[in-house]
């Protein structure tokens, strides 16, 4: 059980770092404060290049792995003690 927990923790650390990095690599589409509350209509162009699409796939994969690790760690915490 301990080996599994440590393994999951390592996975969590790695995915957390990768997740932050991949998210920062995205082009920001937030638009910032100006159109947050009652800005003009911003025309959103959803066309994204191949690089952005691949980045999306990597981000989603990492996020799923990250979430799974957290859930598993939570379950171990709950039932191991």
């Amino acid at each position, binding site marked *: 059980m301990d080996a599994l927990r440590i393994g999951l*923790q390592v996975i*969590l*650390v790695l*995915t*957390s*770092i990768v*997740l*932050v990095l991949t*998210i*920062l690599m*995205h*082009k*920001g*589409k*937030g*638009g*910032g*404060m*100006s*159109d*947050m*509350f*009652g*800005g003009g*209509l*911003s025309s*959103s162009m*959803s066309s994204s290049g191949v690089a952005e699409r691949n980045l999306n796939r990597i*981000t989603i994969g990492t*996020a799923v792995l*990250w*979430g799974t690790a*957290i*859930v598993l*760690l*939570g379950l171990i*915490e*709950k039932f191991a003690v």
Partner: protein
Amino acid sequence: MLRAFAQAFRTPDLRRKLLFTMGIIVIFRIGSFLPTPGVNYANVQTCVSASADNDVLGLINLFSGGALLQLSVFALGIMPYITASIIVQLLRVVIPHFEALHKEGQAGTAKLTQYTRYLTIFLAILQATTIITTARTGVLFGGCGEAGGTIPVISDDSAVTILLAILTMTAGTGLVMWLAELITERGVGNGMSLLIFISIAASFPAALWTVANAQGGFMTFLLVVLLALLLIAVVVFVEQSQRRIPVQYAKRMVGRRVYGGTSTYIPIKINMAGVIPVIFASSILMLPTLLAQFGDQNAGWVQWILRHFATPASPFYLITFALLILFFAFFYTSITFNPDEVADNMKRYGGFVPGIRAGRPTAEYLRYVINRVTSAGSIYLVLVALIPTLAFVLLGISNIPFGGTSLLIIVGVGLETVKQIDSQLQQRHYEGILK
């Protein structure tokens, strides 16, 4: 109106966007309840119910939809992103480089957004560290759940566990930021504001329920609901109203074609700054109490701060809040709407306000109108922000279920999102949801 809703779902393009947005919201809510590894969920629950009436964390907790006090993976929620946006926006006044980037147009704005994102992660690390350490020492829950006590919030008090929790929360904040951007990009509405909206709306029913249960009983509950509905109606009315300054464009010939000759108007909303002054003011007012948490609890200044700033009902708090809102309303309007720039642009395209010369006189006229409209708007903001608090004090309800801030945010974001759905609907049909 209901037909318009049905139509929104029958349009394939819009249906995809709506479903996408809802999916993201579901992910966001699930993450708000997923406990961070290393945090003992059962002990957190015990501590939350023990320190439910802590006013300091009330507002932060409200913005995160109850996720903060759960110490979940999305505990920080969208707050670091908002703070980062505010900081970058304000730095435009201070740092010339930022102002130059802003003026550059699309590419410059993209760069500013990128700065905002880096700052968000930095702030997330900072805030996650603060939250985890205060939870560990028991300050977060008002002396409950310290490490080594009977009900430790963090089950295993080793450096590895704590670092892991901080790292996870930071990554969670990054993920929330990305989710918000995805909504803006592929869904409906602005992701950032929509996620705050969801967080606040999620804690609304529970807050109302405590009023119905704890104090005053059913009549008070009814009164509170009526007050909320009335305020929402007022806010909707004022948010939609605007002053229209007529602008006439001169006809001009370019080659063989005639351009211009149209008359339009510059819409100036009564409350141009939106809900931002209220958010600024409340986050600044949170600072002294946060500082006091770290001081010696028996010191004179800590006692003074706790007496005057920890409860929203104290007159000192109310007056400071009102003054801050007034200041930020003017400040933010002056940042977002630059009369000189607008007048300059109008002059360049041959536009003028009837009866006023183009150029500097126009800029001065615009500034005059904006100052007068903003005066009314800022007073309205103060009233909306303070009325719920005052009413609850008068009704004798001690813990305030919702403030004017949350009402303003809910109505503002709701209107904006519906307007966006509407404009998409009108690409296919003529009748929208809003008449």
